[in-house]
Protein backbone atom coordinates (compact mmCIF):
# COMPACT_ATOMS: atom_id res chain seq x y z
CA UNK A 1 0.00 0.00 0.00
CA UNK A 2 1.42 3.26 -1.04
CA UNK A 3 0.36 6.82 -0.50
CA UNK A 4 -0.62 8.86 -3.49
CA UNK A 5 -1.01 12.61 -3.43
CA UNK A 6 -4.07 13.34 -5.55
CA UNK A 7 -5.16 16.93 -4.93
CA UNK A 8 -4.79 20.04 -2.90
CA UNK A 9 -7.41 19.92 -0.14
CA UNK A 10 -8.58 23.38 -1.15
CA UNK A 11 -9.52 22.10 -4.61
CA UNK A 12 -12.39 20.04 -3.12
CA UNK A 13 -14.55 22.26 -0.89
CA UNK A 14 -17.20 20.70 1.40
CA UNK A 15 -20.05 19.19 -0.63
CA UNK A 16 -17.84 18.78 -3.69
CA UNK A 17 -15.92 15.96 -5.28
CA UNK A 18 -13.06 15.36 -7.61
CA UNK A 19 -12.42 12.32 -9.71
CA UNK A 20 -8.74 11.39 -9.84
CA UNK A 21 -6.75 8.61 -11.37
CA UNK A 22 -4.43 6.52 -9.24
CA UNK A 23 -2.40 3.74 -10.83
CA UNK A 24 -4.89 3.53 -13.67
CA UNK A 25 -7.91 3.46 -11.36
CA UNK A 26 -10.50 6.20 -11.24
CA UNK A 27 -11.38 7.24 -7.75
CA UNK A 28 -13.89 9.81 -6.52
CA UNK A 29 -12.73 12.01 -3.64
CA UNK A 30 -15.60 13.53 -1.64
CA UNK A 31 -15.48 16.25 0.98
CA UNK A 32 -18.24 15.87 3.59
CA UNK A 33 -18.02 18.86 5.88
CA UNK A 34 -14.25 18.80 5.93
CA UNK A 35 -13.82 15.03 6.07
CA UNK A 36 -12.55 13.32 2.94
CA UNK A 37 -13.76 9.98 1.58
CA UNK A 38 -12.70 8.00 -1.48
CA UNK A 39 -14.86 5.62 -3.54
CA UNK A 40 -13.97 3.54 -6.56
CA UNK A 41 -15.60 5.13 -9.60
CA UNK A 42 -17.33 1.92 -10.58
CA UNK A 43 -20.78 0.93 -9.40
CA UNK A 44 -20.94 -2.57 -7.91
CA UNK A 45 -24.20 -3.12 -9.77
CA UNK A 46 -23.26 -2.86 -13.43
CA UNK A 47 -20.16 -0.75 -13.52
CA UNK A 48 -21.42 2.78 -14.14
CA UNK A 49 -19.16 5.72 -13.24
CA UNK A 50 -20.64 5.83 -9.76
CA UNK A 51 -18.78 8.89 -8.53
CA UNK A 52 -20.28 11.07 -11.25
CA UNK A 53 -23.75 10.47 -9.79
CA UNK A 54 -25.79 12.98 -7.83
CA UNK A 55 -24.87 13.71 -4.22
CA UNK A 56 -28.12 13.30 -2.30
CA UNK A 57 -29.52 12.99 1.23
CA UNK A 58 -31.26 10.08 2.90
CA UNK A 59 -35.04 10.28 2.68
CA UNK A 60 -36.55 8.16 5.41
CA UNK A 61 -39.94 7.24 6.80
CA UNK A 62 -41.38 4.60 9.07
CA UNK A 63 -44.98 5.07 7.95
CA UNK A 64 -46.56 7.05 5.12
CA UNK A 65 -47.00 10.67 6.08
CA UNK A 66 -43.97 10.74 8.35
CA UNK A 67 -41.07 12.17 6.38
CA UNK A 68 -37.51 12.74 7.53
CA UNK A 69 -34.43 13.98 5.78
CA UNK A 70 -31.24 12.72 7.33
CA UNK A 71 -27.55 12.74 6.47
CA UNK A 72 -27.84 15.68 4.07
CA UNK A 73 -25.43 15.39 1.16
CA UNK A 74 -23.92 12.12 2.38
CA UNK A 75 -25.34 9.70 -0.17
CA UNK A 76 -24.31 9.08 -3.74
CA UNK A 77 -26.88 8.06 -6.34
CA UNK A 78 -25.59 6.00 -9.25
CA UNK A 79 -26.19 7.72 -12.59
CA UNK A 80 -27.44 4.51 -14.22
CA UNK A 81 -30.07 2.78 -12.07
CA UNK A 82 -30.16 5.20 -9.14
CA UNK A 83 -29.00 2.78 -6.46
CA UNK A 84 -27.97 4.86 -3.45
CA UNK A 85 -24.65 4.45 -1.60
CA UNK A 86 -23.38 5.87 1.65
CA UNK A 87 -20.38 8.04 0.77
CA UNK A 88 -18.79 7.36 4.17
CA UNK A 89 -18.94 3.57 3.99
CA UNK A 90 -19.82 2.59 0.44
CA UNK A 91 -22.80 0.66 1.81
CA UNK A 92 -25.81 0.31 -0.47
CA UNK A 93 -29.08 1.61 0.95
CA UNK A 94 -31.23 -1.15 -0.49
CA UNK A 95 -28.96 -4.07 0.24
CA UNK A 96 -26.58 -2.93 2.95
CA UNK A 97 -25.41 -6.44 3.76
CA UNK A 98 -24.57 -7.64 0.30
CA UNK A 99 -23.79 -4.65 -1.92
CA UNK A 100 -20.89 -2.25 -1.28
CA UNK A 101 -19.16 0.34 -3.37
CA UNK A 102 -15.43 -0.04 -2.86
CA UNK A 103 -13.85 2.53 -0.56
CA UNK A 104 -10.24 3.56 0.01
CA UNK A 105 -8.58 5.11 3.04
CA UNK A 106 -7.87 8.77 2.56
CA UNK A 107 -6.06 11.35 4.67
CA UNK A 108 -5.01 14.94 4.37
CA UNK A 109 -1.40 15.72 5.06
CA UNK A 110 0.88 18.73 4.84
CA UNK A 111 3.69 18.15 2.41
CA UNK A 112 7.12 19.50 3.08
CA UNK A 113 8.10 19.86 -0.57
CA UNK A 114 5.46 22.46 -1.19
CA UNK A 115 6.08 24.52 1.90
CA UNK A 116 9.33 25.55 0.32
CA UNK A 117 7.52 27.31 -2.52
CA UNK A 118 4.44 28.72 -0.91
CA UNK A 119 4.09 31.03 1.97
CA UNK A 120 0.90 29.44 3.37
CA UNK A 121 1.34 25.76 4.17
CA UNK A 122 -1.26 23.74 2.27
CA UNK A 123 -2.82 20.37 2.99
CA UNK A 124 -2.97 17.66 0.36
CA UNK A 125 -5.40 14.82 -0.13
CA UNK A 126 -3.63 11.49 -0.01
CA UNK A 127 -5.19 8.19 -1.10
CA UNK A 128 -3.75 4.96 0.16
CA UNK A 129 -3.85 2.24 -2.46
Amino acid at each position, binding site marked *: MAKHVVARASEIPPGHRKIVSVRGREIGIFNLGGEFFALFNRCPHQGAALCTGEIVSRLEST*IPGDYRLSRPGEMLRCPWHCWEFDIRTGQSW*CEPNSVHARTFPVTTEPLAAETVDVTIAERYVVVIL
Partner: protein
Amino acid sequence: MTLQHGAIDCDIHPTVPSVRDLLPHLEPYWREHILRRGLERDNFDISAYPSGSPLTSRPDWRGAGGLAATNLASIQAQLLDPFRPSAAICNVLHGAQMMMSEDLSLALCRGINNWLIAEFLDRDPRLRASITVPIHSAELAAEEVERLAGDQRFVQVLLLAMAEVPLGRRQMWPLYRVAEKYGLPIGIHAGSSFRHPPSAGGWGSLYLEDYVSFAQGFAGALNSLLAEGVFQKFPDLKVVLIESGVTWMPASMWRIDKTWRGVRSEVPWLAQLPTEIIRDRVRMTLQPFDAPPDVAAVTRVLEQLGSDDMLLFSTDYPHWQFDGMDALPDGLPPALIQKILFDNPRATYPRLAALHPVGETTS
Protein backbone atom coordinates in the same frame (compact mmCIF):
# COMPACT_ATOMS: atom_id res chain seq x y z
CA MET B 1 -54.23 -35.24 -6.90
CA THR B 2 -56.92 -36.09 -4.38
CA LEU B 3 -57.11 -34.65 -0.97
CA GLN B 4 -56.63 -35.70 2.61
CA HIS B 5 -59.63 -35.07 4.78
CA GLY B 6 -59.70 -32.19 7.19
CA ALA B 7 -58.16 -29.58 4.93
CA ILE B 8 -59.13 -25.96 5.33
CA ASP B 9 -60.76 -24.81 2.11
CA CYS B 10 -60.07 -21.09 1.86
CA ASP B 11 -62.33 -20.26 -1.07
CA ILE B 12 -65.81 -21.52 -1.85
CA HIS B 13 -68.66 -19.59 -3.40
CA PRO B 14 -72.23 -19.94 -2.27
CA THR B 15 -74.41 -18.30 -4.91
CA VAL B 16 -77.23 -15.93 -4.01
CA PRO B 17 -80.04 -17.47 -6.09
CA SER B 18 -81.84 -14.16 -6.59
CA VAL B 19 -82.30 -10.82 -4.91
CA ARG B 20 -85.75 -12.16 -3.88
CA ASP B 21 -83.99 -14.60 -1.57
CA LEU B 22 -82.27 -11.72 0.19
CA LEU B 23 -85.50 -9.85 0.96
CA PRO B 24 -86.16 -11.57 4.31
CA HIS B 25 -82.63 -10.66 5.37
CA LEU B 26 -82.86 -6.94 4.59
CA GLU B 27 -83.84 -4.11 6.87
CA PRO B 28 -87.50 -3.10 6.26
CA TYR B 29 -86.55 0.22 4.69
CA TRP B 30 -84.36 -1.42 2.08
CA ARG B 31 -86.82 -4.26 1.45
CA GLU B 32 -89.41 -1.65 0.59
CA HIS B 33 -86.91 0.37 -1.47
CA ILE B 34 -85.97 -2.67 -3.52
CA LEU B 35 -89.56 -3.78 -4.08
CA ARG B 36 -90.70 -0.29 -5.12
CA ARG B 37 -87.88 -0.06 -7.63
CA GLY B 38 -88.45 -3.59 -8.87
CA LEU B 39 -84.84 -4.48 -8.15
CA GLU B 40 -85.82 -7.90 -6.85
CA ARG B 41 -86.26 -8.96 -10.47
CA ASP B 42 -82.56 -8.44 -11.12
CA ASN B 43 -79.94 -10.88 -9.85
CA PHE B 44 -76.97 -8.52 -9.85
CA ASP B 45 -74.71 -11.20 -11.27
CA ILE B 46 -71.23 -9.80 -11.56
CA SER B 47 -69.71 -9.53 -15.01
CA ALA B 48 -66.50 -11.14 -13.81
CA TYR B 49 -68.36 -14.43 -13.27
CA PRO B 50 -71.40 -14.48 -15.55
CA SER B 51 -73.51 -17.43 -14.52
CA GLY B 52 -73.53 -18.93 -18.00
CA SER B 53 -69.74 -18.98 -18.36
CA PRO B 54 -68.29 -22.51 -18.22
CA LEU B 55 -65.67 -21.32 -15.69
CA THR B 56 -68.30 -20.07 -13.26
CA SER B 57 -69.48 -23.53 -12.41
CA ARG B 58 -68.48 -27.11 -12.98
CA PRO B 59 -71.18 -28.69 -15.17
CA ASP B 60 -71.87 -31.57 -12.78
CA TRP B 61 -72.41 -29.08 -9.96
CA ARG B 62 -75.03 -26.95 -11.69
CA GLY B 63 -78.55 -27.22 -10.32
CA ALA B 64 -81.96 -27.00 -11.95
CA GLY B 65 -81.81 -23.32 -12.93
CA GLY B 66 -78.23 -23.63 -14.18
CA LEU B 67 -76.80 -22.09 -11.01
CA ALA B 68 -74.59 -24.00 -8.59
CA ALA B 69 -74.08 -23.76 -4.83
CA THR B 70 -77.32 -21.92 -4.17
CA ASN B 71 -78.20 -23.87 -1.02
CA LEU B 72 -76.62 -25.74 1.82
CA ALA B 73 -77.79 -29.16 0.63
CA SER B 74 -75.85 -28.91 -2.63
CA ILE B 75 -72.73 -27.53 -0.93
CA GLN B 76 -72.86 -30.43 1.52
CA ALA B 77 -73.46 -33.04 -1.17
CA GLN B 78 -70.89 -31.71 -3.64
CA LEU B 79 -68.16 -30.31 -1.42
CA LEU B 80 -68.39 -30.76 2.34
CA ASP B 81 -69.30 -34.45 2.39
CA PRO B 82 -67.02 -35.78 -0.37
CA PHE B 83 -63.95 -33.59 0.29
CA ARG B 84 -64.50 -33.47 4.06
CA PRO B 85 -62.74 -30.19 4.85
CA SER B 86 -62.53 -29.25 8.51
CA ALA B 87 -63.59 -25.75 7.49
CA ALA B 88 -64.53 -23.93 4.29
CA ILE B 89 -64.59 -20.15 3.84
CA CYS B 90 -67.59 -18.80 1.93
CA ASN B 91 -66.83 -15.86 -0.36
CA VAL B 92 -69.97 -14.50 -1.96
CA LEU B 93 -69.43 -12.82 -5.32
CA HIS B 94 -72.29 -10.46 -5.97
CA GLY B 95 -73.10 -7.07 -7.44
CA ALA B 96 -74.11 -5.91 -3.95
CA GLN B 97 -70.50 -5.00 -3.32
CA MET B 98 -70.35 -2.46 -6.11
CA MET B 99 -73.72 -0.68 -6.40
CA MET B 100 -73.41 2.97 -7.41
CA SER B 101 -75.37 3.95 -4.30
CA GLU B 102 -73.10 3.27 -1.37
CA ASP B 103 -76.07 3.00 1.00
CA LEU B 104 -77.85 0.46 -1.19
CA SER B 105 -74.55 -1.37 -1.50
CA LEU B 106 -74.24 -1.60 2.27
CA ALA B 107 -77.88 -2.66 2.65
CA LEU B 108 -77.48 -5.50 0.17
CA CYS B 109 -74.12 -6.59 1.61
CA ARG B 110 -75.78 -6.71 5.03
CA GLY B 111 -78.54 -8.80 3.55
CA ILE B 112 -75.97 -11.20 2.10
CA ASN B 113 -74.14 -11.51 5.40
CA ASN B 114 -77.42 -12.17 7.22
CA TRP B 115 -78.37 -14.71 4.56
CA LEU B 116 -74.97 -16.41 5.01
CA ILE B 117 -75.54 -16.67 8.74
CA ALA B 118 -79.09 -17.99 8.48
CA GLU B 119 -78.74 -20.32 5.52
CA PHE B 120 -75.19 -21.59 5.93
CA LEU B 121 -73.17 -20.71 9.05
CA ASP B 122 -75.98 -21.56 11.49
CA ARG B 123 -76.65 -24.83 9.74
CA ASP B 124 -73.23 -26.40 9.23
CA PRO B 125 -70.39 -25.94 11.69
CA ARG B 126 -67.78 -26.53 9.00
CA LEU B 127 -68.64 -23.27 7.25
CA ARG B 128 -66.94 -19.94 7.79
CA ALA B 129 -67.32 -16.76 5.76
CA SER B 130 -65.76 -13.52 4.62
CA ILE B 131 -67.67 -10.37 5.49
CA THR B 132 -69.22 -9.00 2.30
CA VAL B 133 -68.68 -5.24 2.28
CA PRO B 134 -69.43 -2.30 -0.04
CA ILE B 135 -66.07 -1.96 -1.75
CA HIS B 136 -66.50 1.66 -2.80
CA SER B 137 -67.01 3.00 0.70
CA ALA B 138 -64.35 2.14 3.24
CA GLU B 139 -66.37 3.96 5.87
CA LEU B 140 -69.52 1.87 5.37
CA ALA B 141 -67.43 -1.27 4.90
CA ALA B 142 -65.79 -0.62 8.26
CA GLU B 143 -69.25 -0.22 9.78
CA GLU B 144 -70.32 -3.63 8.53
CA VAL B 145 -67.11 -5.19 9.84
CA GLU B 146 -67.81 -3.63 13.24
CA ARG B 147 -71.32 -5.09 13.18
CA LEU B 148 -70.13 -8.64 12.51
CA ALA B 149 -66.64 -8.89 13.96
CA GLY B 150 -67.95 -10.38 17.19
CA ASP B 151 -69.13 -13.45 15.26
CA GLN B 152 -66.04 -15.64 15.11
CA ARG B 153 -67.35 -17.51 12.09
CA PHE B 154 -66.49 -14.46 9.97
CA VAL B 155 -62.78 -14.84 9.41
CA GLN B 156 -61.94 -12.28 6.70
CA VAL B 157 -63.14 -9.18 4.84
CA LEU B 158 -63.84 -9.55 1.14
CA LEU B 159 -62.73 -7.04 -1.53
CA LEU B 160 -62.24 -7.29 -5.27
CA ALA B 161 -58.89 -6.66 -6.95
CA MET B 162 -60.13 -3.85 -9.16
CA ALA B 163 -62.44 -1.16 -7.81
CA GLU B 164 -62.87 2.60 -8.21
CA VAL B 165 -59.43 3.32 -6.79
CA PRO B 166 -56.31 1.21 -6.31
CA LEU B 167 -56.63 -0.66 -3.03
CA GLY B 168 -53.69 0.96 -1.28
CA ARG B 169 -55.14 4.49 -1.46
CA ARG B 170 -55.65 6.25 1.86
CA GLN B 171 -59.39 6.46 1.45
CA MET B 172 -59.40 2.67 1.95
CA TRP B 173 -57.53 2.86 5.24
CA PRO B 174 -60.52 3.08 7.61
CA LEU B 175 -61.43 -0.43 6.48
CA TYR B 176 -57.90 -1.75 6.96
CA ARG B 177 -57.75 -0.18 10.41
CA VAL B 178 -60.84 -2.05 11.56
CA ALA B 179 -59.81 -5.30 9.88
CA GLU B 180 -56.45 -5.17 11.63
CA LYS B 181 -58.14 -4.41 14.94
CA TYR B 182 -60.22 -7.60 14.77
CA GLY B 183 -57.53 -9.87 13.31
CA LEU B 184 -59.38 -10.21 10.00
CA PRO B 185 -57.21 -10.58 6.88
CA ILE B 186 -58.25 -8.61 3.82
CA GLY B 187 -59.25 -11.13 1.17
CA ILE B 188 -58.88 -9.74 -2.32
CA HIS B 189 -60.83 -11.78 -4.82
CA ALA B 190 -60.34 -11.82 -8.58
CA GLY B 191 -62.71 -9.47 -10.30
CA SER B 192 -63.59 -5.90 -10.92
CA SER B 193 -66.41 -3.50 -10.33
CA PHE B 194 -65.80 -2.50 -13.96
CA ARG B 195 -65.56 1.20 -13.26
CA HIS B 196 -62.39 0.81 -15.32
CA PRO B 197 -61.48 -1.79 -17.93
CA PRO B 198 -59.70 -4.88 -16.54
CA SER B 199 -56.95 -4.18 -19.04
CA ALA B 200 -55.31 -0.83 -18.47
CA GLY B 201 -55.26 -0.39 -22.26
CA GLY B 202 -59.03 -0.06 -22.59
CA TRP B 203 -62.15 -2.14 -22.89
CA GLY B 204 -61.67 -5.58 -24.42
CA SER B 205 -64.24 -7.31 -26.55
CA LEU B 206 -64.23 -10.79 -25.08
CA TYR B 207 -64.51 -12.61 -21.78
CA LEU B 208 -61.24 -14.45 -22.40
CA GLU B 209 -59.19 -11.26 -22.31
CA ASP B 210 -61.01 -9.93 -19.25
CA TYR B 211 -60.51 -13.11 -17.30
CA VAL B 212 -56.82 -13.44 -18.16
CA SER B 213 -56.24 -9.75 -17.39
CA PHE B 214 -57.50 -10.29 -13.83
CA ALA B 215 -53.96 -11.42 -12.96
CA GLN B 216 -52.71 -7.93 -13.87
CA GLY B 217 -55.45 -6.53 -11.67
CA PHE B 218 -53.94 -8.42 -8.75
CA ALA B 219 -50.48 -7.14 -9.53
CA GLY B 220 -51.85 -3.60 -9.62
CA ALA B 221 -53.68 -4.03 -6.31
CA LEU B 222 -50.62 -5.49 -4.63
CA ASN B 223 -48.30 -2.80 -6.02
CA SER B 224 -50.67 -0.17 -4.70
CA LEU B 225 -50.79 -1.72 -1.21
CA LEU B 226 -47.00 -1.89 -1.15
CA ALA B 227 -46.25 1.52 -2.59
CA GLU B 228 -48.80 3.38 -0.47
CA GLY B 229 -47.30 1.87 2.67
CA VAL B 230 -50.34 -0.10 3.86
CA PHE B 231 -48.13 -2.84 5.31
CA GLN B 232 -46.19 -0.30 7.38
CA LYS B 233 -49.27 1.62 8.45
CA PHE B 234 -51.06 -1.56 9.55
CA PRO B 235 -48.30 -3.85 10.78
CA ASP B 236 -50.64 -6.70 11.77
CA LEU B 237 -52.74 -6.70 8.61
CA LYS B 238 -52.55 -9.72 6.31
CA VAL B 239 -53.73 -9.89 2.74
CA VAL B 240 -55.01 -12.98 0.94
CA LEU B 241 -55.15 -12.96 -2.85
CA ILE B 242 -58.04 -15.21 -3.75
CA GLU B 243 -58.28 -16.94 -7.10
CA SER B 244 -55.32 -15.02 -8.49
CA GLY B 245 -53.75 -17.83 -10.53
CA VAL B 246 -50.58 -17.76 -8.37
CA THR B 247 -47.86 -18.10 -10.99
CA TRP B 248 -47.81 -14.45 -12.11
CA MET B 249 -46.39 -13.63 -8.70
CA PRO B 250 -42.65 -14.44 -9.15
CA ALA B 251 -42.32 -12.18 -12.19
CA SER B 252 -44.14 -9.42 -10.37
CA MET B 253 -41.83 -9.84 -7.36
CA TRP B 254 -38.71 -9.55 -9.48
CA ARG B 255 -40.06 -6.47 -11.20
CA ILE B 256 -41.00 -4.60 -8.06
CA ASP B 257 -37.73 -5.43 -6.27
CA LYS B 258 -35.70 -4.31 -9.25
CA THR B 259 -37.60 -1.07 -9.70
CA TRP B 260 -37.67 -0.34 -5.98
CA ARG B 261 -33.86 -0.30 -5.84
CA GLY B 262 -33.87 2.65 -8.21
CA VAL B 263 -36.84 4.65 -6.89
CA ARG B 264 -36.75 3.76 -3.21
CA SER B 265 -36.48 7.36 -2.12
CA GLU B 266 -39.99 8.00 -3.48
CA VAL B 267 -41.43 5.40 -1.07
CA PRO B 268 -39.13 5.71 1.94
CA TRP B 269 -41.42 3.62 4.18
CA LEU B 270 -40.52 0.66 2.01
CA ALA B 271 -37.28 0.08 3.87
CA GLN B 272 -36.85 -3.57 2.90
CA LEU B 273 -37.16 -5.51 -0.34
CA PRO B 274 -40.86 -5.50 -1.33
CA THR B 275 -40.59 -9.24 -1.86
CA GLU B 276 -39.73 -9.75 1.79
CA ILE B 277 -42.90 -7.90 2.74
CA ILE B 278 -44.92 -9.99 0.30
CA ARG B 279 -43.53 -13.25 1.69
CA ASP B 280 -44.31 -12.13 5.19
CA ARG B 281 -47.78 -10.62 4.76
CA VAL B 282 -49.39 -11.80 1.53
CA ARG B 283 -51.02 -15.20 1.00
CA MET B 284 -52.57 -16.77 -2.09
CA THR B 285 -55.31 -19.35 -2.49
CA LEU B 286 -54.31 -22.38 -4.52
CA GLN B 287 -57.01 -22.66 -7.20
CA PRO B 288 -56.72 -21.78 -10.02
CA PHE B 289 -53.04 -22.69 -10.27
CA ASP B 290 -51.73 -21.49 -13.62
CA ALA B 291 -48.98 -24.00 -14.30
CA PRO B 292 -48.56 -27.11 -16.43
CA PRO B 293 -49.15 -30.33 -14.48
CA ASP B 294 -45.48 -31.15 -14.48
CA VAL B 295 -43.36 -31.55 -11.40
CA ALA B 296 -40.35 -29.66 -12.76
CA ALA B 297 -42.36 -26.57 -13.71
CA VAL B 298 -44.26 -26.53 -10.43
CA THR B 299 -41.06 -26.98 -8.42
CA ARG B 300 -39.48 -24.06 -10.25
CA VAL B 301 -42.41 -21.76 -9.55
CA LEU B 302 -42.44 -22.73 -5.88
CA GLU B 303 -38.72 -22.01 -5.62
CA GLN B 304 -39.28 -18.64 -7.20
CA LEU B 305 -42.03 -17.79 -4.72
CA GLY B 306 -39.35 -18.42 -2.14
CA SER B 307 -41.63 -19.24 0.78
CA ASP B 308 -43.56 -22.30 1.94
CA ASP B 309 -45.98 -20.15 3.87
CA MET B 310 -47.76 -18.36 1.06
CA LEU B 311 -50.18 -20.88 -0.43
CA LEU B 312 -53.57 -21.67 1.10
CA PHE B 313 -55.66 -24.60 -0.03
CA SER B 314 -58.83 -23.80 -1.95
CA THR B 315 -61.19 -25.71 -4.19
CA ASP B 316 -62.77 -22.54 -5.59
CA TYR B 317 -66.02 -24.56 -5.56
CA PRO B 318 -68.19 -24.40 -7.67
CA HIS B 319 -65.91 -22.68 -10.20
CA TRP B 320 -64.58 -25.15 -12.71
CA GLN B 321 -60.88 -25.51 -11.86
CA PHE B 322 -60.59 -29.31 -11.70
CA ASP B 323 -62.61 -32.45 -12.32
CA GLY B 324 -63.61 -35.30 -10.04
CA MET B 325 -61.80 -35.18 -6.71
CA ASP B 326 -58.51 -33.79 -8.09
CA ALA B 327 -58.53 -30.61 -6.05
CA LEU B 328 -54.75 -30.44 -5.67
CA PRO B 329 -52.63 -29.47 -8.67
CA ASP B 330 -50.08 -32.15 -9.61
CA GLY B 331 -46.45 -31.64 -8.75
CA LEU B 332 -46.74 -30.23 -5.23
CA PRO B 333 -44.16 -31.74 -2.86
CA PRO B 334 -45.77 -33.76 -0.01
CA ALA B 335 -44.24 -31.68 2.80
CA LEU B 336 -45.67 -28.55 1.25
CA ILE B 337 -49.11 -30.13 0.84
CA GLN B 338 -49.43 -30.49 4.61
CA LYS B 339 -48.63 -26.79 4.99
CA ILE B 340 -51.00 -25.71 2.23
CA LEU B 341 -53.91 -27.79 3.54
CA PHE B 342 -53.69 -27.00 7.25
CA ASP B 343 -50.76 -25.06 8.64
CA ASN B 344 -50.77 -22.05 6.35
CA PRO B 345 -54.51 -21.39 6.62
CA ARG B 346 -54.35 -21.70 10.39
CA ALA B 347 -51.42 -19.28 10.53
CA THR B 348 -53.15 -16.83 8.17
CA TYR B 349 -56.56 -16.69 9.79
CA PRO B 350 -56.30 -16.05 13.53
CA ARG B 351 -59.89 -17.21 13.88
CA LEU B 352 -59.01 -20.62 12.45
CA ALA B 353 -55.83 -21.05 14.47
CA ALA B 354 -57.52 -23.35 16.94
CA LEU B 355 -58.84 -25.79 14.30
CA HIS B 356 -57.34 -29.22 14.67
CA PRO B 357 -56.28 -31.16 11.63
CA VAL B 358 -57.67 -34.68 11.35
CA GLY B 359 -55.74 -37.06 13.58
CA GLU B 360 -55.18 -34.55 16.35
CA THR B 361 -57.69 -34.57 19.15
CA THR B 362 -60.32 -31.91 18.87
CA SER B 363 -61.60 -30.08 21.87
